[in-house]
């Protein structure tokens, strides 16, 4: 145990994991209540296109992925609002095209190696000091913004039209939310991997929903479930040398399904 905590790369993983789980905990609450899990899954898969652009151009893959995912998120919002195509369909198109672009660029670039595997499934060993700085620089202000506008997001989640009548600029808030969502996905990639990152956006919120009596408590439970899954998952990953993303998601799923089944029997 102590040995785990004393290794510098695990310390980095835990720090990044905690920052990520707090932000995704808040986001997850709204994803679950607003039934946006497909948006989360779509943007997280689209992020692969951004990572590949980074590989191909030699830019930092995470920074490229942040910029790319934010553009995709805004694209989904714009097509959804213009009508004609449903948001569901536009997500389906954006994410498959992004993945295709990613695969094409990865095939063309010469760096096709374990690095890519790390982005897909998570790799604690790959977390650099620069990644930690990036995670902090991005997650702290975005988490703060979400907390600043918590009241507004509560009202929008309850009813969008009512929020508008209450003077809230709903469209601006929705765009901010999508940007926060895209950012939280990308900073989670190092730890959980592109394939599984969407789970962190859905399972903690769903677990919290089982216990929460109000929105604030739902956010608290969601962050707690996320943080516990990340920490416990990282321990298991280190101990048994299994990809961290898989361990984190399986832990998260366990703390969702166990109380759910107990609730059913009770």
């Amino acid at each position: 145990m102590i040995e785990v905590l004393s290794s510098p790369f695990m310390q980095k993983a835990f720090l990044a994991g905690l920052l990520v789980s707090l932000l995704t905990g808040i986001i997850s609450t709204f994803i679950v209540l607003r039934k946006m899990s497909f948006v989360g899954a779509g943007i997280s898969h689209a992020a692969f296109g951004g990572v590949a652009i980074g590989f191909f151009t030699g830019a930092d893959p995470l920074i490229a992925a942040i910029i790319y995912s934010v553009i995709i998120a805004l694209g989904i919002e714009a097509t959804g609002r213009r009508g004609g195509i449903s948001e569901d369909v536009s997500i389906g198109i954006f994410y498959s095209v992004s993945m295709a672009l990613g695969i094409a660029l990865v095939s063309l670039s010469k760096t096709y190696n374990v690095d890519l595997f790390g982005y897909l499934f998570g790799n604690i060993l790959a977390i650099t000091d620069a990644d930690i700085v990036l995670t902090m620089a991005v997650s702290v202000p975005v988490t703060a913004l979400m907390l600043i506008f918590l009241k507004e997001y509560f009202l929008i989640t309850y009813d969008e039209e009512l929020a508008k009548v209450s003077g809230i600029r709903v469209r601006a808030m929705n765009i901010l939310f999508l940007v926060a969502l895209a950012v939280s996905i990308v900073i989670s990639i190092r730890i959980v991997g592109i394939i599984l990152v969407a789970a962190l956006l859905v399972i903690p919120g769903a677990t919290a929903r089982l216990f929460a009596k109000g929105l604030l408590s739902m956010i608290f439970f969601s962050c707690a479930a996320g943080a516990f899954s990340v920490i416990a998952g990282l321990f298991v990953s280190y101990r048994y040398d299994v990809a961290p993303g898989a361990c984190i998601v399986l832990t998260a799923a366990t703390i969702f399904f166990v109380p759910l089944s107990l609730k059913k029997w009770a």
Partner: protein
Amino acid sequence: MSSALEVEGLTVAVKGKKVLRDINFTLEEGIFLGIVGPNGGGKTTLIRTILGLLKPASGSVRVFGQRPGSTLAQSGILGYLPQHQNIDPNFPATALDIVLMGRYRAAGFLKWPGKKDREKALQCLTIMGAEELRNRQYSQMSGGQQQRVSIARALAADPRMLVLDEPSTGIDVVGQEDFYHLLKGLQKKMNLTILMVSHDIGSVTSYVDEISCLNISLHYHGNPLGALDEKVMTSLYGKSVDLLVHSDVCDKCERLRQH
């Protein structure tokens, strides 16, 4: 008395299709108005335009002398009850949490509702006869109780005009009568102007002061008893009043008899 609402030559188009055409009426402050008409007749479009959620293609709307866009930016003017089915019945909140949402704007940017806001919220729950529900989960209340809590939420913002979209959906007939009665009481006690959309012309006429019969254009506006005129009904529903109540069944009976 000043005018609460002035609608002049209002035409609204949704996706290029005219949903409302040349609507004109005025409403004095403190009046309870029922807006009735068939589905697709533009009832919800009218209130959405009054609230400032939709822009008119032509004509104008003034709410207490102001443009709808500017009323959105101010507190203490509008209280709104959206259609009930739009709200997640399992929303994780207690009744008090919901009513406090009505105080968010008054609490201000970056601030959570404080002690005064709580008192106001409890007071509104009491007005609605729902104070014992305050710690109850929203998901565990009946449709009628949820509706009382929602109105308490709207009242918590101290509005001058209350706008309700089909508020009686999900409430049984006995509950509906109580509900309209309650609204009537609020109107008198707080000098509220109330706009209520309903598809149920039969039951609202005995509670409202004025009625607007809407089917793309305004076919009648005035005393509710005047709306029960055959000509008005035909323009709204295309059939006589008798057929309105049991229209589907009678149509089938009629056809069966002919065969």
